[in-house]
């Protein structure tokens, strides 16, 4: 593939190339022994459980496209599901999980916790969403596919979602053996609908009945740049749950009150991104109607270890958002593309334009986490974050697929846990 000419291809060919390239990440980032997927392509990257969730969702897509045999996909999926089933669930500092949840980052070889990472509720939900995609897709009566379905179901059923509330009204963001539940505020609209849906649907350990309402009570409905929407700054928030759930035409009580749905909301959020880039209050290079994508991800950093009292302008890995920032001129091409189902016209224009102007943000057709045109020295290439992140490839692959075939959405519309969870969180209407 020649990335420099990507932008000249017709829409279908462009999307084909980007989707196929994104899939290659999961082929190259796997440990075949246990199926774990590396978080990034950087040397000695650990595995991220969310990246595994994306991989499990990507394999069925690859089978449909003929990029991978069904047998290969089943083998990889079963391998990783077995790993989680048999993993150390003691919750110790070097275990893999606790209460059915898993630590965010695992040693890709041993599966033990690394980086003193937290037991992550949202990342476990993304992992299980992937497991449920596999469970729905691999429906044959072969022993391997039967085993796959059984393990996926068992992993879901053993999660103690109620414990994840930690006695509070909403789900805690994380837990560590060293200090218990983390204290990070996790209120306001965020990417967690899929987490709440899965947690509410559990036949074994569901969250309390009022948990979802307690979370949505922290929502803010705002009129910004002429768009009325449920506010969240970083673009990925408006995308992640949508990779698995088709929110078109279904409404919870909040969206009924507002006469909107989450899909339409993400469309508006995408337009708000573009409006922000047009305004470009920070005066950053390249921002414009076809150059945007402000989200959580990697960016340049000017952090100095000691306190120096020096003003900072660059924020490294950060949850960048609009319109309040932080904004240091860093964009994520994958974030723009992942809004494809919501606003295909403006997204395709942006994807094409960014590929044309900043081909350096892609290598082998895969998006870097972030690029910063304001840090292009002397008209040279933009600053580009090193390596690639699995989540970026996963969301690109899934959103392109949903846009073109609705494959993941259709699979998950048939998933009883998703349907029950949506109903129990108050969703009604549409396909539900």
């Amino acid at each position, binding site marked *: 593939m020649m990335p420099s000419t990507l932008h000249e291809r017709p829409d279908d060919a462009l999307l084909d190339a980007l989707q196929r390239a994104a899939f290659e990440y999961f082929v190259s980032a796997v440990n075949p022994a246990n199926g774990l997927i590396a978080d990034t392509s950087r040397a000695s990257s650990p595995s991220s459980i969310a990246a595994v969730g994306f991989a499990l969702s990507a394999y069925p897509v690859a089978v449909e496209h003929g990029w991978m045999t069904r047998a290969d996909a089943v083998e990889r999926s079963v391998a990783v599901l077995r790993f989680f089933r048999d993993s150390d669930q003691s919750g110790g500092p070097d275990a893999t999980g606790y209460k059915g949840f898993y630590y965010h980052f695992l040693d890709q070889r041993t599966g033990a916790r690394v980086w003193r990472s937290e037991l992550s509720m949202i990342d476990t939900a993304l992992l299980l969403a992937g497991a449920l995609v596999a469970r729905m897709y691999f429906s044959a009566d072969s022993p391997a596919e039967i085993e796959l379905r059984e393990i996926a179901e068992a992993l879901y059923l053993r999660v103690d979602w109620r414990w994840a509330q930690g006695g509070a009204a909403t789900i805690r963001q994380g837990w*560590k053996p060293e200090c218990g539940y983390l204290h990070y505020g996790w209120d306001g609209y965020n990417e967690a609908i899929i987490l709440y849906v899965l947690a509410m649907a559990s036949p074994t350990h569901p969250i309390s009945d009022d948990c979802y309402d307690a979370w949505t009570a922290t929502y*803010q409905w*705002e*009129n910004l740049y002429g768009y009325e929407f449920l506010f969240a700054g970083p673009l990925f928030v408006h995308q992640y749950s949508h990779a698995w759930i088709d929110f078109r035409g279904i409404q919870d009580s909040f969206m009924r009150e507002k006469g909107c749905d989450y899909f339409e909301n993400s469309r508006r959020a995408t337009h708000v991104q573009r409006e922000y880039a047009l305004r470009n*209050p920070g005066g950053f290079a390249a921002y414009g109607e076809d150059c945007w994508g402000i989200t959580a991800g990697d960016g340049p950093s000017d952090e100095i270890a000691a306190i120096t009292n*020096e*003003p*900072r302008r660059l924020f490294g890995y950060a949850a960048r958002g609009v319109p*309040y920032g932080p904004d240091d001129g860093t964009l994520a091409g994958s974030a723009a593309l992942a809004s494809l189902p919501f606003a295909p016209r403006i997204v395709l224009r942006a994807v094409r334009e960014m590929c044309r102007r900043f081909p350096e943000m892609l290598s082998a057709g895969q998006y870097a986490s972030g690029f910063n045109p304001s840090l292009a020295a002397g008209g040279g290439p933009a600053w580009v974050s090193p390596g690639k992140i699995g989540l970026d490839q996963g969301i690109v692959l899934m959103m392109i697929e949903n846009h073109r075939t609705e494959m993941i959405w259709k699979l998950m519309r048939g998933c009883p846990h998703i349907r029950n969870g949506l109903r129990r969180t108050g969703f009604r209407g549409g396909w539900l």
Partner: protein
Amino acid sequence: MSIVLPRDTPIPPGQELAERERLERLHPAGWTNPAPAQRYGLVVVGAGPAGLVAAHAAAALGARVALIERALLGGDCLNMGCVPSKSMIRTSRLYGEMRDAARYGATPPPAPDVDFAAVMQRMRRIRARISRADSIDRLKAAGVDVFFGDAQFDAADAVTVGAARLRFRKAIVATGASPDTPSIPGLAEAGFLTNESVFDLAELPRRLLVIGGGPLGCELAQVFCRLGARTTIAQDAPLFLPKEERDAAQILSDSFARDGIEVRLNTAAVAVRVENGQKFVDLVSDDYRNTVAVDAILTGVGRVPNVEGLGLERAGVDFDLASGIRVDDFLQTTNPRIYAAGDACLEHKFTHAADASARIAVRNALFPGRQRLSALIIPWCTYTDPEIAHVGLYVREARERDIPVRTFTIPMHDVDRAITDSEDVGFVKIHIEQRRDRILGATIVARHAGDMINEITLAMVAGIGLRTLARVIHAYPTQAEAIKKAADAYNRTRVTPLIQAVLRRWVAR
């Protein structure tokens, strides 16, 4: 509890005059309390903002008034609160702008030296000047009997101060609040600053740790950082200003980071020790522990009402050590003769809230008044850069009351004057009730948010909605135009597709 007059600290040379002038006005040396009247129409305990307003208002209404103060007239606001902090904020803003001069198209001066003594001298001059309004002379001229000393109620209708016993028909307790101090092992031994001592500093600490991310901690962290102290702020919560909305607090965190403040959220200070004159503070954030070495520690973890040692029990006045004097909506205490006002009884501890509550207390005490505290619409503002101002309900409060909310948001980067001034960080958010043009509240984050919030407060007090605000012509270019823009955004949503079609047909006829 005792308040120490700020005379313990040596006053730097050249600043004695302003200080002497202020102290002479607020607690003259050699003062002799007057002989008490047989009975006062109103005795006011505490001469901070609430007490002074109450005394002047009651005297103006013709009541025989006594005012008791144990330290300085003017209270915290004038002597160790709003006034000194705001004057230091102004200087620190200037240093911030000098450092950032290139942003304004100006040449940055070569590494401006901070003359900390000059900063404090200016603050003292300003404090002395503003103290005129609170002076003993004005009280005497108004006919108020001023008593300095500790007040002790000894009956339901009498209070003693020194040798004098003051009998009263009505009384107002306005004793204010004091800084709460965190119970961190080693902190007391190491020594720390609060708002009661920080304005007496003679030298800028080279390294400062601020414990607490409330309004005081946030304002002063930024001040000291901009004056050149290497500043760390530790807040034991996910965001600063926990009462404010998430986006406001987030913008503040980012502004702090841009200033170069070391921001430590979700972080508790757990131990302090002193070695070789340096203070070492252990910080814990979940499972991450580290130690910072600093030269000074400032705590701003909240304020507790001054309710102990006043003999309130003997007067039949109920109180709680945390929430203060128990009052009803008319500010009456459990003793029908005695009312309370200001920080001693209010949840919202602001000078302007103290002032407003004192006016209510006076009317309800002297007349058969039925003015309610709950009817007040009280704005507030934290004077960081950008400022964070709020009035009315927060969205979460409205939603808790099952009021559906729409928010009209104008980022300051859409406001021409904010752009011309390179002050385009922030927003105006106006919350209205869905399907009704009723303003529930607003939050403004902007360089001058404190001035801008007054327009929203006016609209709320007058019952004006966004439709009317959209008809108010705002001078161009001003930053307050953001409010008009929010009102215009609301008006545009009133044009439904049906109305739009009708309008189009009419215009095209």
